[in-house]
């Protein structure tokens, strides 16, 4: 480890100033903080909150219910990223739907779903489009490809989300954001500058041990001034303007809409839906889905965890009823979810 990193590390371990609430809003950050042992470095005066940065974790119960209905009642083939299959819905998860005869297929890319639609013209194929600005462009590419191929048996169930309004919704629980480097690589950093104007600090962070340590040390040093700040600590990947072709692609195919986040409720203009000119590829319109508002298990505190109001271990069902094998809430399903990471790495109890 280099001298600069050693210095950054001692900045962190030696910090005993006023309580700092740092929120990471990227599931990969959550996971890497544990895996790389960074959490073990933090003194008591630093609270690292795992925010709503895992796409699986923020997907609302009602969305799973919609997908289950498409599979069981509309006889559609559901293509999805594997993580979503075990997320509990009101009645059942997609795994439950599969055991009742639903055709649920894990895919690694939305384009795989387009390929399936091409090869099975007699079936209706629905791709579950979830994720942030990092994954939304690939769903847009799939939509454009399906249109180009003239496929009338492909559609998407969109629950794509964008970060800016979530930052605003959560700003009262946070002193500084650890911005998700991969999202900022697409969006650029204008939103971070805007948050600074609103009085909320932040740094864009990369994903290696030294990048994460550096980012936290920068937050500590800059916080001493008492002024809001923004620093891009991941300049080798993140530029101020971001990935313009990707931004254009998203704007061409999708437009902002209100969106429900599990545990946080509806955040205005924090989601993405297909534009009217692509409405024939919108599964909700195509299958005339009713409005479904799902019911989460009332004992589950995923919502509080995502807002930093409690730690996973404060939840009554954590580690007992709710485990990665039998998840009650979405944060226990994905390996990037806060509850799953707490459970798997069990850092606190080690000697």
């Amino acid at each position, binding site marked *: 480890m280099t001298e600069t990193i050693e210095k950054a590390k001692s900045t962190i371990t030696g910090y005993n100033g006023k309580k700092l609430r740092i929120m990471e809003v990227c599931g990969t950050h959550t996971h890497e903080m544990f895996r790389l*042992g960074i959490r073990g470095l933090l003194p008591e005066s630093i609270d690292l909150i795992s925010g709503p940065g895992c796409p699986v974790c923020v997907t609302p119960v009602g969305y799973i219910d919609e997908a289950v209905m498409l599979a069981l009642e509309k006889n559609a083939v559901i293509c999805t990223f594997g993580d979503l299959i075990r997320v509990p819905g009101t009645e059942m998860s997609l795994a439950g739907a599969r055991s009742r005869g639903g055709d649920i297929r894990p895919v690694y890319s939305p384009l795989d779903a387009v390929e399936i639609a091409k090869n099975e013209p007699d079936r209706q194929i629905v791709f579950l489009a979830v994720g942030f600005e990092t994954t939304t462009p690939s769903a847009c590419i799939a939509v454009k490809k399906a249109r180009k191929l003239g496929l009338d048996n492909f559609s998407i169930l969109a629950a794509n989300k964008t970060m800016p309004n979530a930052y605003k919704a959560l700003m009262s629980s946070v002193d500084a954001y650890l911005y998700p480097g991969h999202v900022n690589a697409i969006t650029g950093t204008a939103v971070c500058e805007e948050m600074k104007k609103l009085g909320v600090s932040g740094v864009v962070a990369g994903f290696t041990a030294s990048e994460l340590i550096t980012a936290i040390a920068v937050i500590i040093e800059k916080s001493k001034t008492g002024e809001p700040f923004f620093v891009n600590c991941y300049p080798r990947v993140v530029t101020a303007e971001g990935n313009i072709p990707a931004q254009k692609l998203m704007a061409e195919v999708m437009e902002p809409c209100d969106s429900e986040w599990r545990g946080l409720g509806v955040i205005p203009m924090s989601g993405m839906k297909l534009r009217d000119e692509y409405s024939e590829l919108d599964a909700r319109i195509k299958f005339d889905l009713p409005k479904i508002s799902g019911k989460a298990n009332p004992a589950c505190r995923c919502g509080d965890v995502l807002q930093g109001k409690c730690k996973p271990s404060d939840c009554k069902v954590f580690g007992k009823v709710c485990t990665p094998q039998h998840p009650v809430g979405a944060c226990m399903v994905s390996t990037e979810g806060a509850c799953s990471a707490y459970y798997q*790495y069990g850092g606190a109890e080690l000697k």
Partner: protein
Amino acid sequence: MEKTVTLAHGAGGKQTSELIDTIFKAHFSNPELTADDAAVLDIGGGKIAFTTDGFIVSPFEFPGGNIGKLSICGTVNDLSCMGAKPQYLSCAFVIEEGFPMDKLEEIAAAMEKTAAEAGVKIVAGDTKVAGRGQVDKIFITTTGIGKISENVRTSGAYAKPGDAVIVTGDIGRHGCTILLARDEFGIDAKVTSDCAPLWANVEKMLGVTSDIHVIRDATRGGVGTVLYEIAGQSGTGILLDQEKIPVEPEVRGVCGMLGLEPLYLACEGRLVVVVPKDKADAVLDALRGCKYSENAAVIGEITEENAGKVVMKTAVGTKTLLPQPGGELLPRIC
């Protein structure tokens, strides 16, 4: 026209003997392998290790080997882990109708070569042909016996606090190879399976000291699963040094892209060895002088605390639990 295996080859008549003569006898020939119903073996006194393993890997050929080589290595290595010199194997084939004869020949040739390298004889066998779709191409089951060297007692239960934990080479290559060979991810990386017979390596270690507490081959579930098993069997903890675990850059890269932990990817030519600390250097020297274990490394130690757990010392000097794998691992890797 391409020659293939037909249902007639499995019917027990003339074609069956032809198949056995031209492929299996041609490759496996030795005095104990006869046309009789069972092999008659002279194994002398002492303790015998006895094991069996089925192989259903998909795809059946992959960079670094095929199902034939794998089926010999798997059973040879299981015997070797008990400190037993592999002596005799039997093999049973279940082949799908239509399987290309030249591929069967390649598989038999790989078995011959690997068995010769391991110093083991194939003395009994069986061939069945199943109708199209009733089996996926080819499945092989091998069973083996080996003689246990005197004074050698290895078991996951014998790990003791203070012991050193060694792996005999870089980890996760077989699992990674199979993953890429299925071509489901569109990732192009040069990774070859570590599939290898390891009796020579074990023999060399036992030449240095018979005081080896644990030898395990890290197949399905990888090194991580084996370590959790050892911790559970012996009621100890294991402290790993994250930075000392050997992983090829290509394997690390693929794992990074797919969110996999190399410690949970299968190896087919790697051992986890637990020895008293004062013997570790000598054992490591012996291993590094052998083919397939040139990059052996001490990756951690057995501890009294954190019993039943595998803990990682991270690059930043903190400790974190090695998460236990949950749910579905890769199907059909061996």
